[in-house]
């Protein structure tokens, strides 16, 4: 078993950035370390680059992070982004909404993707009976809630959802660059969640 003290400099710097405990370790990280993988440098660079965004504020990055970490079921990243969101001034309500969005969108992604797969009018007619009240008047604002929804849907792979949310965002005035950054962040968080958990 690899000890944290013998993790490479790159990894130690990355874990420090992520505010990990001194004795943090993960099995997947150990595999990379044992093989002295070059991938660790790329993972760290990708994460840090997505963390700073021209088109997303620091608070928005943090809230997206919370949402995506909850979607991934990743406690390590969820805690990191939660702390990060708090220090960027996010309220408990906003953080809660990020978590709620991930959960709700996960349901919608299964549901609407099914409708899209089968494409039978009958399934569109049967009432969904899934409550989506938090979409009504989001604390984080309509545009940002749509952005979080798009990011989660992109990870969960629902084409119909991604297209619908992208369309809403453009109509609300968001730029493609901003949407792209959110998706890049989602990609990078997904890749990180496979190694650090």
């Amino acid at each position, binding site marked *: 078993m690899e000890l944290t003290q013998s993790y490479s*400099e*790159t990894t130690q*710097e990355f874990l420090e950035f992520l505010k990990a405990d001194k004795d943090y370790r993960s099995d997947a990280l150990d595999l990379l370390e044992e093989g002295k993988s070059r991938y660790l*440098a*790329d993972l*760290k*660079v990708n994460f*840090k*680059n997505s963390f700073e965004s021209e088109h997303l504020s620091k608070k928005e990055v943090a809230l997206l992070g919370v949402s995506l970490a909850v979607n991934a079921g990743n406690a390590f990243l969820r805690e990191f982004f939660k702390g990060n969101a708090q220090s960027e001034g996010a309220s408990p309500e906003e953080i809660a909404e990020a978590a709620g969005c991930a959960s709700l969108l996960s349901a919608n992604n299964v549901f609407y993707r099914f409708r899209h797969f089968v494409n039978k009018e009958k399934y569109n007619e049967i009432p969904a009976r899934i409550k989506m009240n938090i979409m009504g008047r989001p604390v984080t604002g309509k545009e940002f809630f749509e952005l979080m929804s798009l990011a989660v849907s992109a990870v969960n792979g629902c084409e119909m959802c991604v297209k619908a949310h992208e369309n809403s965002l453009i109509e609300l005035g968001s730029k493609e660059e901003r949407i792209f950054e959110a998706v890049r962040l989602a990609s990078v968080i997904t890749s990180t969640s496979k190694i650090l958990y």
Partner: protein
Amino acid sequence: MTKEIAEFNKSYGEFRDRSTNLIGASTDSEFVHLAWRKNHDDLRDLKFPMLADTSKSLAEELGILEVNEKIAYRATFIIDPQGIVRWVSVYDLNVGRSVKEVIRVLDALQTDELCPCNWEKGKETIKA
């Protein structure tokens, strides 16, 4: 000047993660360089080498030696593995360098997308 070297030193990990070596150079001698390192807190753990270009020949060949006073301008060069200069940044003596900008350019210069998902019909295949 020392503040800039310290900035690069602080970002040493960022350059290392991008497989990039850092080399500092000035026209001062190696003794002056050693004195700096001993006397400045920020430089004590300097992680990269300093070149002593005492004859000013390197600065001259790089085209950054001011003609009259023979002082070197503050310049940053990004050189690729084949030895080709890919980016040069030269500042007036009063303006500090931005390490963040150097890293941004480095990211832009280094190949990232190697995935064939980006390949368009008719284009050459990827040669990494």
